[in-house]
């Protein structure tokens, strides 16, 4: 029988906490932005690029390690934590933002590829005084529970409604050449890139339908 993990953990003594290797154990920095630990002398200069991102109407100049995903640039460098990380591999949609008006998974693109691009995140949709219609609809229709997938759902819905307006068909569009309508099947197919583990799907669908319907009516 395996030892219980709590047994193991609670039985540890200070001795058992190993700090491997002294060479890199620089004193913990008081400020995350201060100079990092010294690199080995012969390592090449870290590959980084300087870019300008327009996020929610504000310009940000950033010098980033090339590997930084757009998602991490938003969350860790710009401290815009509204956009969420769920899977980091483009499968769950929690990281959806609007890039030049199109919905994309920010986890699967590099920040350095978007010098000069216009980005809208959940923080940029609407204001406290004037919510974006989708935000208001999500409230009215209780379109969330834990709320973690919600920013991605809302941004994805904004992008999706744009695509619908542009007449872009989907996998379930029966007539490929016709102007697509937002039927129940269409809405679900188009939003299938956004997972909700709380299962608030029907309320999300209602919220989106209401806004789509209002657009059709207006």
């Amino acid at each position: 029988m395996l030892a219980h993990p709590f047994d193991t953990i609670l039985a540890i003594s200070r001795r058992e906490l190993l700090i491997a290797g002294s060479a890199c154990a620089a004193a913990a920095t008081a400020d995350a932005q201060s100079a990092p630990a010294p690199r080995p002398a012969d390592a090449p200069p870290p590959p980084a690029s300087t870019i300008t991102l327009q996020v929610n109407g504000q310009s940000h100049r950033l010098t980033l390690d090339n590997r930084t995903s757009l998602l991490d640039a938003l969350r860790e460098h710009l401290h815009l934590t509204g956009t969420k990380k769920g899977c980091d591999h483009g499968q769950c949609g929690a990281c959806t933002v609007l890039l030049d008006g199109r919905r994309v998974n920010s986890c699967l693109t590099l920040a350095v590829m978007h010098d000069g691009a216009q980005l809208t995140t959940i923080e940029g949709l609407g204001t406290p005084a004037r919510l974006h219609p989708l935000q208001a609809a999500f409230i009215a229709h209780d379109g969330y529970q834990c709320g973690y997938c919600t920013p991605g759902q809302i941004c994805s819905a904004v992008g999706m409604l744009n695509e619908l307006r542009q007449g872009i068909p989907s996998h379930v569009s029966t007539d490929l050449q016709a102007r697509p309508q937002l039927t129940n099947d269409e809405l679900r197919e188009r939003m299938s890139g956004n997972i909700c583990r709380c299962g608030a799907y029907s309320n999300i669908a209602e919220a989106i339908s209401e806004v789509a319907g209002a657009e059709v009516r207006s």
Partner: protein
Amino acid sequence: MDMPVQTNKSRRGFLKTQAALVVGFSLPLAARRAEAAIDPVDSNTFAPNAWVRITPDNRVSVVCGSAEMGQGVLTAIPMLLAEELDADWKLVSVQQSPVDTAYNNPAFGMQATGGSSTIRGHWTPLRTAGAQAREMLLAAAAAQLNVDASTLRTEKSHVIGPGGKKIPYGALVEAASKQPVPEKPALKSPKDFKIMGKPTNRLDTPAKINGTAKFGIDAHVDGMLVAVMARAPFPDAKPKSMDEAKAKAVKGVQKIITIPSGVAVLADGYWAARKGRDALAVQWDMGPHADFDSAKVTSQLEEAASSANAVAVDKGNPKDAAANATQTISARYEVPYLAHACMEPLNCTAWVKGDEVTLWVGTQSQGPAQGILAHVAEATPAKVKINTLLLGGGFGRRFAPDFTIDATLLSKAAGSPVKLIYAREDDMAAGYYRPASVVRFEGAVDDKGAATMLRAGVGSPSIMAASGFMKIPENGVDSMAVEGLADHPYAIPNQRIAYGRAEPGPQVWFWRSVGHSQNAFFIESFIDEMAAAAKADPLQFRLALLSEAPRHKAVLELAAARAGYGKPLPKGHVHGIAVAESFGSYVAEIAEVSVAADGTPKVHKVTAVVDCGMTVNPQTIARQIEGAICYGLSAALYGRISYKDGRVEQSNFHDYPVARMTDMPKVDVHIMPSSENPGGIGEPGTPPLAPAVTNAIFKATGVRIRSLPIDTEALKKKA
């Protein structure tokens, strides 16, 4: 082993909470003020107990000790209190409490959220807290107006006096604070409820729709290092080698620290930590587990199920009944380990400074964490502060202390704040799964088509033993391994239900609806098999056996009526039914399903009827039932954690699929009016879903699904 938790009274275990949730209790309300709450209590605040604060501007702030993971406690807790307080709901707000025994969940005796217990546990205490405050306000107003308190009434945060004179509560703050705190204030009769029982919008808006809502993963502490861990692929595996030089060469990596659960790389940011961890390339000594695989799990569970002898139910004479039966049937059922797969990957930010520990985390178990972390950090329990942030899904996973322990150990070793983040792949492989389980059934029906015998042997790991704070009782029955099966509602005269413990190795834990999640699938499928053996309609067969279970019967009958059970359905569509009680609530689900030629089932609609006693927020109840159905659907269609060569095979949502919007059926939830005490609502919607769907599949195809996830190969039309 005992968990060193600080409580101010004897600890109640989960068992007791399931048996009969305590409505009366003793919580020392008088003179109870919480230490160091979010808003300081000063002379300008009326705060007769830990939960309510009223300020001169007439606003009411309710302090909530429960964790919010989408189940609506941040709204329901205030509703309980605001009702008895007669507050104007528009003036009510909520704030998260610190960790403090004042906020112990009365159902558990510790500050923790789970077991669908928040409403049940707080039903009387929070109402009492609101009523207390109301009586003190009335007494203060009576003194001010020089009348008898009986001539006054309250309405929407005002005391109404003779001649209609209205005094806002805010004007009575100082005077009310001087009143004695009544121990047993009168509570409203449910027929007088104005707030409870009405669909009410959440209070955690607009933060959740504008990006400002803060989850654990959003925490930021200046000077923090971000940690990503190489965690043992199997419990007890030990690191045997690693490439420290390569990890250190990654820009931004600051430290490499080994703790019991694995090796952590700490860096300035997530990517550096992640790349450092990958570069570390830890090689693991898997010991005896190097060839562990799912086949081994199954064989161990089989063995345990076959030899199960910890008897949970022993009634009549099953052996004789079997011998004399007209017809006996037997079947073997199996379900796999399941991951919780919360949308927000596991994380915890911790800062150990001397004998103080501060956490920023989404956790379901603040109370236990305080004690455990004080121990691991060698700190003073009272100096363990937990900032409870929002949870991006809990489902029981965030009740476990593993990620908080690791973050605390790392911060202590690093001497700085540490934010531990799990990549989705790490989260998926990190254990604490819903147990895999096998059951062997035997049943008998007589020549009149009545069920006369039921025998079941369950083989599965023990959550009680895994929990760290419960023990398997002397009779050897892990109540969680058999809940939903041992306490099924059917009046079958001869029964023997026994548990056999198997411990294949993976760490197991509470998963939404716990043992009910597999046992409802087991029993509701086998009852359906017995109905088929008796050539009876599944609904009628069940109803005949529910003579001792009126609440089960009522929800099942109503669900059948609402679903149009027995009436014509569109071509290819069939109904499957299931009913289950868990956590004090009774849920019947009827699934309308069709099966395509390639074997893919499509669930078109689920009709659910829930009897959860008196309701607080019917809007939340409907969402929770629908959400629990979705969670159950993912498990029925896709969920499976499997092992090969000692490692979990699944890593992300491409190989651990979950229900998407395209899978979601239409759900019709009906809440049965009831004057019973409230039951739980977070979990009860999940257990009936899988069997309702698989019972429908049997009706559609003649193929009985006895293991999950549903194998569509078996359902393909042979043509």
